[in-house]
């Protein structure tokens, strides 16, 4: 088995696409400008920002004036949640979310409890699915906001957002979805989804890090999280990151263009990889068998621990992650894996491979062979393995 390098952690961050770099480069070399200024160099910067906004809006079926640039998915989530609490807090103090949200959502929610807000966390089934019936039951007269993610970052499960948002709509409750792992990876249309707010993050689909956006449906009014010079029509202050938003737009446009082909390929490779990995004994797939991100292959191996697996894979040239990158260093295994009902000791043995569109069959086979070897080696060392 010839050593090769396979980056299989695209859900943590993806390499910048050539398209994104080409769109950014002029703004990092011969061009510059503060889009808020009025002279011609600045007007070019303004045009570039507005074209980026229009392209991004277009790719999720929104209007350009519904797209607000942020510094990433985290800011978009914080903004949607904290400012909705501020905006609608007079009507009620109850918010609803799910048990498998990214920390950007769950910690933002958590931060509101000290201000007298009450959070209901909806459970998920063994595939990581939120049940619309559970949402319906959880809604109270004082419920003012609901946030449920579109696609999960650890297990790839895709929620029935249309159904969930429809319920919210019926009760007149603003609905936010964290679509950070979905945008650029599966078709996303804000009208079909019926959401009022939607978060995205550029570096998850081949754009630069440190840029993202919050979609806010026309008519939905939440106060700024960032006060200042009144950029983004007064809703998000701070000098625009011209290179950043151009890179984000170019990456997204490209991702959407190649999506049908890329996803067919990713599905083929994922299936192949799952097939091989599930031949390893005491191994199970996590996430929904069909409603899942095509590039996410997530599994748990009994009797061994995820970080060790990742480190040994690394020595074989494979970059992957165990649970969320953010939770590395924490002692508790991922809340997502616990939420789908895995016992702690099993959840510790998780591996997420998030594949990029350029992955080959050979890469997949190399991952499978390497993982088989690594799992075997760690089990031999494990006091829990009586193999």
């Amino acid at each position, binding site marked *: 088995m010839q050593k090769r390098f396979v980056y299989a952690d695209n859900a943590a961050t993806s390499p910048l696409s050539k398209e994104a770099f080409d769109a950014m480069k002029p703004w990092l070399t011969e061009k510059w400008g503060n889009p808020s200024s009025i002279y011609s160099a600045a007007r070019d910067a303004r045009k570039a920002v507005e074209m980026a906004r229009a392209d991004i809006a277009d790719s999720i079926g929104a209007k350009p004036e519904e797209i607000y640039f942020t510094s990433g998915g985290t800011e978009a989530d914080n903004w949607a949640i904290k400012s909705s609490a501020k905006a609608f807090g007079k009507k009620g103090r109850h918010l609803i979310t799910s048990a498998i949200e990214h920390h950007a959502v769950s910690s933002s929610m958590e931060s509101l409890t000290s201000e007298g807000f009450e959070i209901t966390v909806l459970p998920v089934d063994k595939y990581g699915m939120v049940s619309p019936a559970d949402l319906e039951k959880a809604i109270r007269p004082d419920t003012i906001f609901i946030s449920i993610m579109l696609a999960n970052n650890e297990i790839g499960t895709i929620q029935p957002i249309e159904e969930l948002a429809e319920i919210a709509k019926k009760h007149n409750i603003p609905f936010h979805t964290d679509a950070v792992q979905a945008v650029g990876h599966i078709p996303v249309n804000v009208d079909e989804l019926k959401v009022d707010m939607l978060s995205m993050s550029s570096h998850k689909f081949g754009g630069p890090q440190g840029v993202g956006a919050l979609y806010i449906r026309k008519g939905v009014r939440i106060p700024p999280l960032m006060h200042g010079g009144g950029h983004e029509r007064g809703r998000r202050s701070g000098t625009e990151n011209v290179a950043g938003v151009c890179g984000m737009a170019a990456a997204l446009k490209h991702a959407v263009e190649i999506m049908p082909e890329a996803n067919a390929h990713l599905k083929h490779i994922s299936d192949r990889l799952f097939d091989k990995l599930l031949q390893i004994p005491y191994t199970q797939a996590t996430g929904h068998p069909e409603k899942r991100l095509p590039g996410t292959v997530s599994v748990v191996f009994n009797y061994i621990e995820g970080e*060790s697996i990742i*480190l040994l894979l690394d020595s074989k040239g494979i970059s992957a992650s165990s649970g969320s990158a953010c939770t590395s*260093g924490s*002692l508790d*295994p991922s809340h997502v894996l616990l939420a789908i009902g895995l016992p*702690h000791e099993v959840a510790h043995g998780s591996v997420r491979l998030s594949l990029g569109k350029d992955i080959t069959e050979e890469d997949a086979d190399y991952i499978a062979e390497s993982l088989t070897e690594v799992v075997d080696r760690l089990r031999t*060392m494990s006091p829990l393995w009586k193999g």
Partner: protein
Amino acid sequence: MMYSDKVLDHFQNPRNVGEIEDANAVGLVGNAKCGDIMQMFMKIEDDKIVDVKFKTFGCGAAVATSSMATELVLGKTIDEALQLTNRAVMEALDGLPPVKVHCSVLAEQAIRAAISDYYKRQGIDPEPIVGKIEEVDHDHEIACD
């Protein structure tokens, strides 16, 4: 979170992995729920640790601290081994990230647990000598800290 080269080396090439068939001292510490279990096997002769091996379920630091701990006690007397602190294990590994310090504590405890077992097998109450050892708790209600 970054591991030192030494930690990575001891993780990737762990010393003394495995079991000792005729061990006369075996300790098991940690908790699967928390993601760390260490098992230490020793052969003690004339108060001296003449052989030591380990098995570990856990993260890179758990494996590396186990490995380093076995190196540090091999050939030592029981008394010397009991003086091994988690700090010494960490230092020998050129340090550990703050969130991984508990692994070195576990490694120290694994050594003490094995020695404790050694005394028990001889009908000697280990507690006055070794101190109190946390037994492995298979009850899942334990809190990981």
